[in-house]
């Protein structure tokens, strides 16, 4: 990891020295070694605290939409982040020419909740290599196989390599198995209609409407979300089955053909609510019916956002 961080630092330094970018979005070390934070470096800033490891939980593409289009942004991207950036470029949220994507092939994000479940809280030290993750709890070292402690979304990842990065640091990894991506959808589909509804209810109705899922998602960049609209109010803000279910369904639908399955929503959720089974299913439909996967390039409009006079479905005419 330290070799990669060194490469990352020298690349960022080069970008500032050669005046390629105004800001670089990356991760930095925080007080707790287990919680690296999003960081924003500008020319002249020390890169001393720059961090990169499998504990970097956030999708950095989320911050792109905070900058004016003229800002030249350098951004550290893993597979999902690069696709989120592409999807944002397609939606004209930042011009491609003002972006510099520093790509890193991603081995998946570690889910601390999975580790803590086995050790206990207040894990301190952290180390990782290709295969193993180790932490220290109460002065004792615990070692885990990487695949046992990765986030569910990362276990299902199909494209760990950044798509069209401007520079790639590290060796490309083998692509993931699309069959694995199906697993969450498959197990949901295997349920009866009533069971599916019960599952959805149990998940959605724990929601406290903190909107961390929305705020953690790079594709949720609306200035005014439908739940915040007033008047008219599109949905109840009261914590009721109707309100929370509406939020979860509409949030998922707005992601159709846009979600890059990064799982940032589930990682942010304070109530451990599963959400990706919905967006993964919608993505699967997009792939099967429109041969479209979000973020695989930075020019193709998602099917539900494209308007074309030659559209083969002439239902409007």
């Amino acid at each position, binding site marked *: 990891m330290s070799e990669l961080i060194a490469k990352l630092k020298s690349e960022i330094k080069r970008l500032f020295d050669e005046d390629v970018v105004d800001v670089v979005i990356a991760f930095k070390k*925080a*007080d*707790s070694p287990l*919680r*690296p*934070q*999003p*960081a*924003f470096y500008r020319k002249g800033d020390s890169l001393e605290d720059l961090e990169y490891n499998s504990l970097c*939980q*956030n999708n950095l593409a*989320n*911050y792109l939409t905070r900058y004016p289009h003229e800002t030249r942004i350098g951004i550290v991207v893993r597979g999902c982040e690069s696709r989120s950036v592409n999807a944002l470029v397609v939606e004209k949220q930042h011009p491609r020419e003002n972006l510099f994507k520093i790509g890193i092939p991603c081995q998946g994000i570690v889910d601390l*909740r999975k580790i803590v*479940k086995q050790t*206990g*809280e*207040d894990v*301190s030290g952290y180390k990782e290599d290709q295969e193993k993750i180790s932490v220290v709890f109460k002065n004792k070292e615990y070692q885990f196989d990487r695949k046992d402690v990765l986030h569910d979304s990362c276990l299902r990842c199909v494209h760990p390599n950044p798509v069209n990065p401007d520079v790639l640091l590290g060796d490309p990894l083998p692509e993931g198995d699309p069959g694995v991506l199906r697993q969450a959808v498959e197990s949901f589909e295997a349920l009866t209609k009533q069971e599916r509804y019960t599952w959805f209810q149990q998940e959605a109705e*724990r929601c*406290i*409407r*903190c*909107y*961390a899922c*929305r*705020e*953690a998602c790079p594709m949720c960049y609306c200035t005014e979300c439908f739940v*915040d609209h*007033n008047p008219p*109010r599109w949905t*109840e*803000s*009261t*914590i*009721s089955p109707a309100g929370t279910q509406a939020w979860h369904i509409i949030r998922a639908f707005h992601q159709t053909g846009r979600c890059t399955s990064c799982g940032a929503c589930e*990682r*942010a959720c*304070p*109530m*451990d609510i599963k959400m990706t089974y919905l967006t993964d299913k919608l993505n699967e439909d997009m792939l099967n019916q429109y041969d479209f996967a979000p973020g695989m390039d930075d020019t193709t409009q998602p099917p539900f956002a494209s308007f074309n006079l030659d559209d083969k479905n002439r239902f409007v005419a």
Partner: protein
Amino acid sequence: MMYILEKKKLNKILSTWAQEHEVFVPQKVEEYSQFLPYTEDSELALKSPHNTRYPPKALFLPQSEVMLKFNNRTQKYEEVNTTPKSRLVFGVRPCDAKAFRLLDTVFDAEDYADPYWKAKRDATILIGIGCEVPPSTCFCTTVGGGPFNQDGLDAILTELEGSYLVQILTEKAETLFASLSPATIEQEKQVEAIQTKAHDSMSPAFETDGLKQKLDQIFESSYWDKISESCLGCGICTFLCPTCFCFDIVDEVQRKERVRNWDTCMFRIYSQEASGHNPRPTRRERTRQRLMHKYSYWLDHIDEIGCTGCGRCVRYCPVGLDIRAMLRTANTHESEAVHA
């Protein structure tokens, strides 16, 4: 008075109480914990080194509370009776109990008492449990509390091998434990040592002396741009916070109810005015509001910090923002020219 409650008798005593009171205990939900009504099948989550993830403030200030109903037939509002039957909350941590006392200064103030809050507070007995090994994310001692702080509690438990020592703190709790055998002098001494050790294990997280003055001074500083840069603007820190009490009253017209919902200064629409103007237009102003409220405005009102160091905002922030680090940075931030 101090009693010994054997762990194996815990369920029995809870069941006994449940005959007279509505009893709430921390219980596991998915991978987190929350206070839920006690039943014989309840799996108690008392082992955690810290408080429940979902805050017990919801027992007094529910996330959504119906205040009035509108009757279509009579064309009149009907009051909703929110007075609960006698309640007993078992397993409250000292940080959360202190927060109830702080919130009483808001909802049960001299000039105005909120009937919804007050009815529930008056009907509730709080049995606390101290934190023997406070985790690194907690900082109660920094803000005037402690892992065995008695503030706001009617009784507090300290865990021993196979039992709990119960310290009775108010009249409300006196009769509850009367059937138990009293603690021995030795056990009392043992508990004192446990409590002191827990307290001493927590080092100060930041300097509170002069912090308010410092924050007031740097109100317009670039400090806020820096510390709010990675903030997502979600409601986790405030919704899970035991002392955050902001609410929004809405008319849910379809269900003909007037409801009070939790609200948060971290949301854009919180301060959005009908004109379209927003006095807190960015995360900079919203983050500032959160910190200033706890570490400056509360002091203006009651001369106490409005944070109990419960650690939830530190533990559950999706971008790892740590209020302690923010305040340390504030303390060392050089005052500068007024922000443009």
